[in-house]
């Protein structure tokens, strides 16, 4: 059997099992006669999704835009901070206790502060999403830089390269696999941050939709919101995985990349 065939078979299995999960959910609800106020069936949720899509669409865009803004800012902040911590011992000793302290604070407790500073709406949502997603990036960038093999740096040092040259040509490329690993985690965190802030203090976005739907006991709509969030999260995760394969193929040495490297 060829590699391609095996690959197809594996993917078919995975798709089948995912479908089976939803079928099982549907069946469970039908057999137990579950009320849709408690747990709606997947088909009901899909129906609601299709019917309400025109109304939901602006909220989807709002949540997506907010998340992306928070995520991009979080990545920028995370990379810069991580680079500092990874390169400088003083920065490491100073920043790590602060960062760990900050990341231990439940972000739901921070949202009211952001609202106090900036009013309710998009800005606190962006900030919450930033605050929740930059931490894994900092840690990964710092780890990547701190574990760079001195032999690789020596190659450039012997040429009289500056610290900046070394960071740019060895440190950061070496850290790319670490960065992408953290990006995939961070992008899902960014959604959590956005929805959290929208639930607490906003009149737009999926978080707000779910909040008002649950107070109206419109449980299928709440689940529709959850489905949308899950779908957005998966879509961005996949997007980053694709970029990752292009950028850091050298680190994974997949067979299919041998061909594309030529």
């Amino acid at each position: 059997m060829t590699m391609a065939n095996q690959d197809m078979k594996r993917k078919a299995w995975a798709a089948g099992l995912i479908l089976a999960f939803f079928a099982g959910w549907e069946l469970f609800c039908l057999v137990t006669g579950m009320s849709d106020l408690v747990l709606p069936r997947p088909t009901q949720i899909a129906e609601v999704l299709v019917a309400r899509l025109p109304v939901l669409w602006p909220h989807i865009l709002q949540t997506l835009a907010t998340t992306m803004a928070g995520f991009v800012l979080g990545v920028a902040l995370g990379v810069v901070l991580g680079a500092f911590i990874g390169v400088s011992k003083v920065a490491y000793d100073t920043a790590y206790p602060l960062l760990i302290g900050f990341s231990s604070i439940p972000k739901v407790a921070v949202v009211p502060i952001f609202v106090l500073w900036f009013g309710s709406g998009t800005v606190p949502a962006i900030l919450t999403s930033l605050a929740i997603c930059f931490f894994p990036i900092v840690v990964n960038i710092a780890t990547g830089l701190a574990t760079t093999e001195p032999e690789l740096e020596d190659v450039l040092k012997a040429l009289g390269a500056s610290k900046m040259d070394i960071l740019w040509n060895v440190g950061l490329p070496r850290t790319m696999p670490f960065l992408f690993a953290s990006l995939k985690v961070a992008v899902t965190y960014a959604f959590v941050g956005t929805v959290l802030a929208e639930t607490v203090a906003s009149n737009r976005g999926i978080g707000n939709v779910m909040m008002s739907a649950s107070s109206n006991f419109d449980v299928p709509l709440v689940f529709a919101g959850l489905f949308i969030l899950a779908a957005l999260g998966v879509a961005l995760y996949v997007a980053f995985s694709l970029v990752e394969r292009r950028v850091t193929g050298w680190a994974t040495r997949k067979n299919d990349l041998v061909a594309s490297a030529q």
Partner: protein
Amino acid sequence: MASPLHTVSSMTSMQNRSADATPSGQQAGSPAVPADRRPAIAIELSRAAVTFGQGAGALPALSETTLRIADGEFVALVGPSGCGKSTILRLASGLVQPTAGAVIVGGREVAAKALRVGMAFQNPTMLPWMTIEQNVMLPLKIVEPFRSQFRSQRKSAFRDKAHALLEQVGLKGFAGRYPWQLSGGMLQRANLCRALIHEPRVLLLDEPFGALDQFTREELWSILQDLWLAHRPTVLLVTHDLREAGFLASRICVMSARPGRVIDDSAVPFARPRSIAMTFEPDFVALNQRLRDLIVEARTMPMTEAGA
């Protein structure tokens, strides 16, 4: 960049190098120049010593060593393992600073940056995210005067240069591969190209062929000899292989056990170009034998100065 030993020939190929004049009007290491008119010293260690760490845990790696290498010379450094051979190389490349004494390369204290030095380590240390071509071109990205032209030239002149070098060492067609797709011997060839691409006047080689099989090693000796004969850089080669030292070098320095210092310094008389067959002739074997005895003696010598 204009030091007396660095011939800054902007875009000329490696082959045209010996025709470029140094600022003092002398020819840079060209064989036609009489030895007494050579711009004297390329690498100079004067009473240089290195100690790693401080206080009770201090580890002397190199005791006061004085070593002069003339421009265009090919010097091999041999000695028992751990004797500080690599430390001398790292001193010359500026990776290590002397704790005492001075190290002068190309007429300048080594602490000054941007020396045009080429270095190859025992491990090929190719950057894994770059293709072989990009790895070989790396020094051009860092070292002036190439650095300022890198953006405009990396697709044309610099690339041709990299490909020409790769072809010379038998790596034609591997430029686009990634390091992990090549064998150890191939990587070491690429490593040699990377050490040479920026036309360094000083080449520092730290056991570059140590991990290779006999036949690949001998092949690379011949390639290195050809490159040296064509461009005449100053070479300092650290090696454990006495045949390698005898085949390549014009002068061999033997070092004592740690903390090392030079205990023997002798010229290698054999005519160039040398052949592998020559390494089995009686004169060569005798030289080998003598070096071997010196090192055996150095290994067993008590470390008289270590406690000082």
